[in-house]
């Protein structure tokens, strides 16, 4: 091998070292989140599926069948009942109502901002939306408790002949829905505005109305980004804790009546961890099982939306 130094290599070694170091730093930053995710999964699994050393994991005490099929969640009484269904249904109620409110309103306001609003209107509304996004979730919780429930839910329930509870799933769903509006709006608006101007002009030149252009050209072209924003918003609704703990309550109850007090998976975790169950007890371990379930749901949602995206998206260039 020829070891003679190439005349052009004078500074190359230092530069190459610098490039390599830079590459490593950037790589490290990029993989931090992968490490964190892996660590979280590790903790969830060791606490709930297989115990490390002396520890007994949750599912070594409670069978998966009982966990999934039992209709009661009552860890403190006697042997303890660990059926996740009531918690799951509570979460489903809140997330479902939130999605029903937040997604259409968020998307509609994104379409308004991107396709209809004058620059003046946009410059007024966008900061307002950001304020909405900046309100602490605990405030939303009390907003539900002292405004939404007495002024909206109770009269509405009375109208239907239903006695609404002070803590109820409906009010929680509504405020979480409001909470995710800014998220859907700002993410969707970004993707709508990224649709090339040429496509809109082509539509207008063919005699399309503003509605035609928005719904039949811009929306399909931006569909993948919009679905991504929906997914993020639903994940946020699933994971929302503080507001629903206050608004929905912490009484696990398998119910088809959204005017009743319930408990979501997240609210259950929050109340259990701040309660009086001792570390290492089965009640304590149960929160990891619930967290793992939440993780599985979010993960499944991700996979599902990826599938939808690959199927239906329209790519523009």
């Amino acid at each position, binding site marked *: 091998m020829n070891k003679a130094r190439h005349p052009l290599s004078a500074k190359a070694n230092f530069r190459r070292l610098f490039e390599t170091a830079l590459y490593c730093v950037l790589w490290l930053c990029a993989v931090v989140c992968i490490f964190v995710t892996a660590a979280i999964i590790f903790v969830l699994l060791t606490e709930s599926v297989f115990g490390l050393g002396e520890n007994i994991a949750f599912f070594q005490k409670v069978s998966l069948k009982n966990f999934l099929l039992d209709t009661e969640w009552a860890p403190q009484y006697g042997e303890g009942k660990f059926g996740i269904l009531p918690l799951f249904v509570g979460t489903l109620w809140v997330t479902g109502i939130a999605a029903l409110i937040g997604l259409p309103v968020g998307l509609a306001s994104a379409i308004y901002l991107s396709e209809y609003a004058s*620059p003046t209107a946009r410059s007024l509304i966008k900061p307002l939306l950001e304020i909405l996004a900046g309100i602490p979730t605990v405030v939303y919780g009390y907003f539900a408790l002292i405004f939404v429930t007495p002024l909206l839910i109770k009269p509405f329930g009375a109208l239907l002949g239903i006695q609404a509870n002070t803590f109820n799933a409906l009010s929680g769903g509504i405020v979480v829905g409001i909470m995710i509006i800014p998220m859907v709006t700002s993410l969707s608006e970004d993707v709508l505005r990224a649709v090339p101007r040429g496509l809109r002009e082509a539509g207008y*030149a063919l*005699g399309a109305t503003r509605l*035609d252009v928005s719904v039949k050209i811009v929306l399909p072209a931006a569909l993948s980004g919009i679905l991504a924003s929906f997914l993020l918003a639903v994940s946020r609704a699933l994971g929302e804790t503080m507001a629903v703990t206050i608004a929905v309550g912490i009484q696990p109850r398998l119910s088809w009546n959204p005017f009743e007090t319930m408990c979501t998976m997240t609210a259950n975790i929050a109340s259990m961890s701040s309660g009086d169950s001792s570390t290492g007890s089965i009640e304590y371990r149960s929160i990891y099982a619930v967290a793992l379930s939440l993780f599985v749901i979010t993960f499944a949602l991700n996979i599902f939306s990826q599938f939808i995206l690959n199927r239906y998206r329209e790519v*523009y260039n």
Partner: protein
Amino acid sequence: MELKTFEHLMQNRPELPEQVGHGQPGRQAADVAPTMKVETRNLDFFYGQLQALFGISIAMRARSVTALIGPSGCGKSTYLRTLNRMNDIAEGTRLTGEVLVDGESIYDPQVDVVELRKKVGMVFQKSNPFPKSIFDNIAFGPRIGGERNRAKLEEIVVRSLHQAALWDEVKDRLHASALALSGGQQQRLCIARTLATSPEVILMDEPASALDPASTARIEDLIFELKKNYTIIIVTHNMQQAARVSDYTAFFYQGRLIEFGATKALFTTPKEKQTEDYITGRFG
């Protein structure tokens, strides 16, 4: 593509009178005394405070090709876009004077801009197919116009593709994405899409400027074919192209119309000094 001299090009062009009679027989009477399809009178146009057009008056004949030429920023594209009110989309634009299509003022408050744009179609500089299938691209216009009948839509799609000389290349993949087509094919698809709404006037904003010479030649052949039935107004940067495809030429400079006349006359014996300087390549 071999370079042809201007004289050569002019010799091979069919003269205007030969065009008479290509339309429906019933229209022949009108063709003898040529009708003015599109006309502007004393048109001023403003972007906010900035005046882009100054008193433009041009009358364009039915079933002819009118080329708008001039250096960048001279207002020719702005002028083109006033003819189907595409400038309405931009904020803060203002217009005075008159734009007439078939003798009707298109800026009249009673005019439905949607109907106007179906009658006055437009092809853009950068081909802009929707990210949909070839079929859905062309069926878009008829569909938003309310056409739901599948057989009727198919008929329109096939006819438009034939007219745009694209049928043979895409007939086996009508349901493939339009974005898989080459640049020249995409532009002909956009022309087919415009034809599908059965316009009477077609505005073309530098339709071939982003295309290679072979694709450009195909577009020009197409323009030649289309002018038998449509009134075409084309903005072009390419003087040879203006000479090849157009019957009339308007030369714009700094927002003003410097000269308008038969293409042959304007290119061989320009009346204005500025026109001569521009077409001989002394500036622009």
